[in-house]
């Protein structure tokens, strides 16, 4: 019994206390959050624009070239692994910049944009086409109809899926270590090497990811309930 407790105490000490290793985890957590939230902002921005281009093109037959370009973007970024995209961004596209975090934010953001685009597009298409036709029949432009009528209704379909995308993204960022970023997963791996003990370092990191995901899920539930309420009026 005391032997077990002693072992636990030692593991705790070498994992967190010795050499202020807890700071490695804190830095890792901070970087992981920066990458995930930065990427979700970029991804939402890109995704919304791409979705709007695709919907507008499908409905009006205009913007054909731009639509093709968007289609290619979706195919490429959903058709290749995120780790490979990350490596290409770091070692080829931005080889002249040595800022792993910025490049990771960008790489994950561009990757996420491809998924968000489909989420937003599906959300827009789920709004009855009659809403658009009514807006247009009153002489409102397609842009105004989208902004004033369709998007406010689409947001209810989009937000929950966007939350799931944030969760997926948060976990995906754990490969950021490939481009020298000291993210949360990398912190665990780093401490595992330093302590030559896998248990505390890795299980702790897993627990932190899990709690983050749980937290986001909780927040999403609340938001969804709010939206459902405003739906009934």
């Amino acid at each position, binding site marked *: 019994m005391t032997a077990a407790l002693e072992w636990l105490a030692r593991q705790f000490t070498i994992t967190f206390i010795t050499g202020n290793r807890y700071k490695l985890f804190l830095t890792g957590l901070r970087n992981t959050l920066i990458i995930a939230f930065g990427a979700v902002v970029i991804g939402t921005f890109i995704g919304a624009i791409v979705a709007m281009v695709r919907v507008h093109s499908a409905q009006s037959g205009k913007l054909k070239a731009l639509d093709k370009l968007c289609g290619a973007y979706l195919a490429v970024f959903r058709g290749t692994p995120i780790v490979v995209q990350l490596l290409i961004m770091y070692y080829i596209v931005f080889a002249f910049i040595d800022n792993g975090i910025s490049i990771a934010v960008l790489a994950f953001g561009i990757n996420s944009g491809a998924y968000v685009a489909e989420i937003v597009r599906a959300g827009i298409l789920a709004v*009855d086409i*009659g*809403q658009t*036709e*009514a*807006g*247009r*029949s*009153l*002489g*409102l*432009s397609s842009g*105004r109809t989208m902004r*004033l*009528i369709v998007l*406010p*209704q689409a947001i209810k379909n989009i937000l929950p899926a966007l939350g799931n995308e944030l969760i997926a993204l948060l976990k995906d960022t754990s490969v950021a270590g490939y481009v020298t970023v000291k993210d949360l997963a990398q912190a665990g791996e780093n401490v595992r090497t330093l302590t030559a003990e896998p248990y505390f370092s890795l299980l702790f990191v897993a627990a932190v990811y899990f709690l983050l995901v749980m937290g986001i899920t909780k927040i999403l539930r609340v938001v969804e309930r709010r939206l459902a309420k405003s739906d*009934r*009026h």
Partner: protein
Amino acid sequence: MIVIEELVKKFGGNVVLDGVSERIRAGEKVAVIGPSGSGKSTLLRCLNLLERPDGGRIAFEGEDITDPKCDADAVRRRMGMVFQHFNLFNNLTVLKNITLAPARLKIMAEAEAEERARALLARIGLPEKADAYPSMLSGGQKQRVAIVRALAMNPRVMLFDEPTSALDPEMVGEVLDVIREVAEAGMTMVIVTHEMGFAREVASRVVFIDGGKIKETGTPPELFDSPRDARLREFLSKVI
């Protein structure tokens, strides 16, 4: 007011309007009747360019609106449309549904639009619904609001696409009453309908469409009492 010449509309290989020509004069109330799938909705939707014609021409108040350079939004501001399924904006209150387009498009000031909207709501007996959302209204109430929404733009012509077909029977009357009132106020109207009694009473002229072509047109007595076209006789025998 509206001159349609040899209008053609295809969906893929499906020719839905096959050379439709028609002239609608100011003040006319034209009822469009015909079997399901004959192209009635498509004709109406071509008039306000919700569908782009593939051939022929449509002139509205002297302007060729099938010209690619024509500003479709400007044309639609002068044409009201009422849909079978109402299509009220679900995210807006009844009042906002009515004032959105007139205010945003600067047809009138926000305050004026609201005043007018309230007056129109009072006229259709729904003044207390101004702040309600569409989901709280019955089908009949929704359609009456939809008519008022179109009227709020002060259109030159009103297009109705089966305005009572999606309603429970007990609500048909209240909607037809509103449409009748709009007609009596002198509005030019094109109304696709299966309500033959209403068409006979309100329409100044009836147009029968079948297979994407206008087969017969005339006053209600001419068309309903002494139909010449064989398909029209067959159609009338089924619906009356």
